[in-house]
């Protein structure tokens, strides 16, 4: 199914990452095409988040480069970011805004024009029915994570998702829902990168695995 789409591939070429004095990983290569899921594993502190930050262009690799459709992402900049959804460790949820307002802001920053109706629908899909108009201050950690992830339900047109520990703080029902969203997206022919400690059950035609070593 992945072959039919014209989604450019994400290519990591000879990536090295040194943070401070510590070498996190070196000589890392992978190619991710549309319709593929890349799972990055490894113990705490092995560089999973750094790898994701390099893959989305927040962090410059010590050596090597990441290419999107053959072009270095650090040259492509907005051209690449316009196609990317990144959900990091931090939820990017503001205490003083309601869940719906937070989702609206996140969508317009990512460049997804979200109609008001769809925002409510996305929140309900993540099990936040009734919380749409509550300030995020009163939401639990898991509910904030769900608010951050609700963006995925509106990002079906984005060809690349990069998710850092998407299942952290979520209950089994929500994990199931997010796994379903990811599987659906991959089957649509898009590419997804995620880190997780869970043995997540995501149905994907091709699952690549990178396991980083402790150092």
């Amino acid at each position, binding site marked *: 199914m992945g072959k039919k789409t014209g989604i450019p591939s994400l290519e990591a070429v000879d990536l090295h990452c040194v943070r401070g004095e510590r070498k996190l990983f070196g000589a890392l290569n992978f190619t991710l095409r549309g319709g593929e899921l890349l799972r990055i594993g490894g113990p705490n502190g092995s560089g999973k988040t750094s790898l994701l930050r390099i893959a989305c262009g927040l962090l410059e690799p010590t050596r090597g480069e990441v290419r999107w459709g053959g072009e270095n992402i650090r040259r492509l900049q*907005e051209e690449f970011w316009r196609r*990317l959804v990144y959900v990091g460790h931090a939820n990017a949820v503001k205490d003083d805004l309601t869940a719906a307002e937070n989702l609206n802001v*996140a969508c317009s*920053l990512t*460049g997804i024009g979200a109609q008001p109706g769809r925002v409510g629908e996305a929140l309900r899909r993540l099990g936040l029915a009734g919380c749409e108009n509550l300030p995020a201050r009163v939401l639990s950690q898991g509910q904030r994570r769900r608010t951050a992830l609700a963006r995925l339900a509106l990002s079906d047109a984005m060809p690349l998702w990069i998710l850092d520990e998407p299942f952290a703080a979520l209950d089994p029902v929500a994990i199931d829902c997010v796994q379903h969203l990811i599987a659906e997206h991959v089957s649509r022919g898009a590419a997804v990168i995620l880190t997780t400690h869970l043995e997540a059950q995501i149905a994907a035609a091709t699952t690549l695995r990178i396991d980083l070593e402790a150092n």
Partner: protein
Amino acid sequence: MLVALRCVIHRDLLLAVRRSSDVLTVLLFFVIVVSLFPLGIGPDPALLRTIAPGVIWVAALLASMLALQRMFASDHADGTLEQMLLGATPLGMIVGAKVLAHWLVSGLPLVLISPALALQFDFPREFLGTLVLSLFLGTPVLSLIGAIGTALTLGLRGGGALLALLVLPLYVPVLIIGAGAAEAAVSGLGGQAQLLLLGALLVFAAAFAPWAAAVALRISME
């Protein structure tokens, strides 16, 4: 793209309204500092009239520096800044929108209240316009220059002191020209030259500062 900019401005204003104590702190600081001078210096009208533009300008400068640290701090802490860096809109424009929203809540109130404070100094009424106009043109320049400094010191320990060291030398020309406008008007020279210079500074800063701050943000987020 415009949707994203409007959304950022709207969001920042909304946050300022819901957390109005932050805004009021800056305004109150400005009012208190300016009001203390006549009390400390004594009731000599001629002296007060002379120092009025300088005192108001220095207080406005300090107040705007007090507000600077908040410009990116909360977005940095909760991860929104990462989303802005990886957004579909060029970061320079997002920063421009944020600076505009920041000035609307921390700079514009100072401009609006300054005529009332100038009366405490018996500042001649016919020149109030020049004073207000100089602040109106000058305080956005302070916010724009400050954005670069805040972006550079983001997430540093002791960033506040470093920010002051970085930004103050760049503030000095704005202060000299800004306070000079009202003084020149009072002394009969007319403040047009200074106001035009301030306007030029504003245009220059508005064109370049957001992009410089955007580069600084990318460096501090690495």
